[in-house]
């Protein structure tokens, strides 16, 4: 058990160091969310307090921060999945499987690496937001809850990336899922409140689990710790993470069974 934990930690460390050593992999998950947050804040800064239905917030930056955190984790998770696929393409995965490394450590190591990067990203985005005037109304408890939600989301997204990597063995195929995440993000309340949406778009945003997750994250920043939205968000992300981890285990077993 202790050995498996050490192996998981070593593989998680390798995953984090690998991402940090390839800035082109890390760059999109930091650059795009921050740039979009800045652009949306500049474009929609007049919205709070003016537009009917816009929830009461101190400023649009406070509102946009959760969307940026979520977007960063979605991009980072895709990168983690693609890195796992590169391990498969390059033969590292096969060498790991042939070694006495615990099977669970191979998956958990990559997931833990994704979670560590998501924690770093979330704290970095919060620090940048606060530096530019945002305030986390939930205080330390709010930040802690935000980190829990971010951590579970990272498990869900990295897990999905790993499932695809195990099924296809192709980094390109994993990266090809990025538009899907991008669409999920835009067709949710990640960047603008659901209360201002109408018609079929609102129906889609209402059905999109990302809406509830981002709203739970946003609540910690703009309102404070409130049990209702937090529990809904936690329920959604725990469900997604459980699905992803189950999918990982099944895809892993299937790949091992198919190996010559």
């Amino acid at each position: 058990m202790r050995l498996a934990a050490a192996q998981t930690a070593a593989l998680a460390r390798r995953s984090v160091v690998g991402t940090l050593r390839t800035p082109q992999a890390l760059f999109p998950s930091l650059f795009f969310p921050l740039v979009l947050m800045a652009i949306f804040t500049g474009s929609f800064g007049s919205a709070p307090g003016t537009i009917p239905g816009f929830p009461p917030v101190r400023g649009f930056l406070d509102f946009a921060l959760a969307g940026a955190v979520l977007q960063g984790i979605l991009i980072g998770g895709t990168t983690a999945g693609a890195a796992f696929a590169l391990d498969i393409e390059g033969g590292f995965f096969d060498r790991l499987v042939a070694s006495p490394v615990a099977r669970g450590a191979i998956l958990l190591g990559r997931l833990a690496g994704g979670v560590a990067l998501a924690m770093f990203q979330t704290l970095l985005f919060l620090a940048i937001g606060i530096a530019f005037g945002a305030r986390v109304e939930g205080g330390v408890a709010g930040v802690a809850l935000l980190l829990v939600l971010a951590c579970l989301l990272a498990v869900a997204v990295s897990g999905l990336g790993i499932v695809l990597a195990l099924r296809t063995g192709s980094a390109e195929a994993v990266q090809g899922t990025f538009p899907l995440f991008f669409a999920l993000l835009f067709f949710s309340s990640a960047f603008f409140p659901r209360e201002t949406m109408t018609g079929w778009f609102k129906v889609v945003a209402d059905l999109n689990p990302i809406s509830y997750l981002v709203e739970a994250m946003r609540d910690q920043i703009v309102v404070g710790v409130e049990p209702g939205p937090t529990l809904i968000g936690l329920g959604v992300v725990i469900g997604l993470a459980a699905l992803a981890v189950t999918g990982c285990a099944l895809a892993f077993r299937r790949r091992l069974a198919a190996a010559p």
Partner: protein
Amino acid sequence: MRHALAVSAGLAWRSIILVRRMPSVFLPSLIMPLFILVATAGAFRGISLLPQFAGASYLAFTIPLATVMGAGFAGMNAGMTMARDIEGGFVDRLVVSPAPRLTLIAGPLMAAAMRSVFTTTVVLLAGLIGGVGPPGPLETLAVYLLAVGFSAAAACWAMGVALRTRTIQAAPLMQVMVFLAVFTSVAYAPREVLTGWLHTVANLNPVTYLLEAARAAEFSALGWSELWPGLAALAGLLAVLGTWAVTGLATLGRR
């Protein structure tokens, strides 16, 4: 001159038929503008409730953004195709042929312009399905003209990058600059609504004036005072980025 035109047209035709042979290259430039149109108009519709919009439809407000982005993608495709042609040796073979070098740029430019006409038509049709009819014939012509001009500017930028870097791995650089140019303008809201740093940057960004002219056309409110800043911005972009692409040609024989 006639020879140069024939070679340019041949290269343009080659780029166009690549659409059929490699749809994965062209499809994003068709899907992304439609995605931007639907996602932007749906997600940010609430911003049009601000008094500065005077009750205008946000879908109509977003159509020029989608046409300009579609044109930008058509332009970026020209750069990516050139990068692939450089990696594959096709450009080297053209350089040692009697074809004038300028045709290396002129051909993909013509192809980008044609693709932007197609994406603009698709976006206008999507707008029509969404309930926004096209403006008058002259205004529609202006929307097309501005899109074609922006596709040429984006193509010059992307080809300049391709000629200097000689690798398809530079594609993100081509894309990021076009994205930043468009989204740090009046992409989501008019200038009167923008706040802070974005207001300052949008005032300095030529794409702002291009988009404002296209929007005035879309809302059938296009007069000379709305059109000339857009045309001037376009001329400036084409002059600077055209020079960037042409000077990139000079680097071809060096390595």
